C-alpha cells in the first residue's frame, strides 16, 4: 500500500465538468509526453488522432494525481511490468498526470522503478485533457486515479476512477480489456437462424 500521506479533500462542485463515460468519444488533444530518459530523445507529441486507427490498436490511459508526491510509483511500475501483456492485446499504454514533461522526466530519472518505463508519460500541463475527461479534482486541480480503455474507433469503452489514495489493480484492467476484445469474430460462432457476424 501507499506509504504517502492521504490528504482529505473537500468536495466542491462548482464549474466542474461531468466525468466522461462509456460510449463517448475520447476528447481531442495534443500533448507532450516523456518517452525516454536518454538525452535528446526525451519527448514526443501524443495526439488523440492515433486512437482512431485501422490497425485495431486499443488505448489504455491511466492517470495519477502528482509526480513525486501522491502516487505510489509501484502502481506505475505494475503497469510497466505488464507492458507486454498490453502489447499482446494490441493495446497502447499511456500514463498521464497534470505535471509538466520536465517534472515527468525528472521523476523518471530520479526513481529506480521508473527509469526503464516502456510507455509514455503524458504531460497535461494545461490540465485541459483532465478537465475534458472530467477527472480534475476540484480543489487542487489534479487528476483522480482514472483509467480509460479506448477502442480503435476512439470510443471510450471502460472508465474506472479511484479516489486519490486508492491504488489500481492492473490485472483487472487486463481482464476488462480481454472481455471487451474477445468478440468471437469467427463465423463458426454462427447459430442457426442468426445472421453471421460482419466485421
Amino acid at each position, binding site marked *: 500500500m501507499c506509504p504517502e500521506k492521504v490528504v482529505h479533500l473537500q468536495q466542491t462542485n462548482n464549474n466542474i465538468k461531468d466525468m466522461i463515460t462509456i460510449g463517448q468519444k475520447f476528447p481531442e488533444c495534443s500533448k507532450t509526453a516523456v518517452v525516454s530518459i536518454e538525452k535528446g530523445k526525451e519527448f514526443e507529441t501524443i495526439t488523440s488522432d492515433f486512437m482512431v486507427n485501422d490497425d485495431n490498436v486499443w488505448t489504455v490511459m491511466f492517470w495519477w494525481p502528482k509526480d513525486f508526491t501522491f502516487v505510489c510509483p509501484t502502481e506505475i511500475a505494475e503497469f510497466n511490468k505488464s507492458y507486454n501483456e498490453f502489447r499482446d492485446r494490441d493495446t497502447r499504454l499511456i500514463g498521464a498526470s497534470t505535471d509538466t514533461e520536465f517534472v515527468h522526466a525528472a521523476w523518471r530519472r530520479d526513481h529506480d522503478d521508473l527509469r526503464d518505463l516502456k510507455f509514455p508519460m503524458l504531460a497535461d500541463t494545461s490540465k485541459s485533457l483532465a478537465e475534458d475527461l472530467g477527472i480534475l479534482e476540484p480543489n487542487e486541480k489534479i487528476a483522480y486515479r482514472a483509467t480509460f480503455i479506448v477502442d480503435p474507433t476512439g470510443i471510450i469503452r471502460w472508465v474506472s476512477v479511484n479516489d486519490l489514495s486508492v491504488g489500481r489493480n492492473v490485472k483487472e484492467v487486463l481482464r476488462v480489456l480481454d472481455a471487451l476484445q474477445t468478440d468471437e469474430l469467427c463465423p*463458426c460462432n454462427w447459430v442457426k437462424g442468426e445472421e453471421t457476424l460482419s*466485421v
Partner: protein
Amino acid sequence: MRGFFIHIHLKIMNESTEIINEILQSLGIDISYRTDSITLLEKGESRYLRDLKLNLASILTSEHLSTKECALIGLSTAINNNNPLLTQFFTRYAEEQGAIAAETAEAAGCASLLASNNVFYRFRHFTQKEKYGQIPARIRMQLMMKPVTGKEFFELMSLAISAVNGCEMCVNAHEDSLIKLGTTEERIFDAVRIASLVTSAGKVIF
C-alpha cells in the same frame, strides 16, 4: 512363358518406383525417401500411386484460384495436419508463387486458430445447450480482424481447414459468409478440394 512373366513383373515394379520417384521429385523430396505406407504401395505395385501423383499435381493450379492461393491453402492444410514435409513443400511453392512472409505466416496462423475454433464450436454445436452458448469463448481471434491475405481469402482458408477438421456448422457458417462476400461456388469447391487432397497425400508422405 516364364521369361515373359518375369519381364512384365519387373516392368511394373520399375513403374511403381518410377512413379514414386516422380512424386517425390515434384515435392522436392529425396528419391530415397520411403514411409512404411509408400513401401507397401511400391511392393504391391499399387495402381493407386498413379492416382496419388495426378491428384497431387492437380492441386497446384486451379481455374478459380491463383497459384499463390492454391499454395497458401495447401500450406495451411499441411500445417493443420502436422505434416512437416508437405509444410516445407507448400512454403517453397507459396514463396515461388510470390507469397510474402506475412502471407505464409497467416496461413500458419489460420491453421492454428481454426484448429481451436473447430474443436470449440463443434462442441457447442454438438451439445446445442444454451448454457454453453452463453459463456464467453475467451478465444482470442484478432487475426481475423484484418487479414493480410484479405477477408475473403482468409474465410476461404478457414473453410478449407474446417472441412478437414470436420466441423459441420463451421463449414456451413464459412460457406455462407463466403457466398455473402460474393465468392463463387467453384472457388469454394476448389479450396476444399485442395485441402482434401493435401490431407490425402499426408497419409503416405509426412
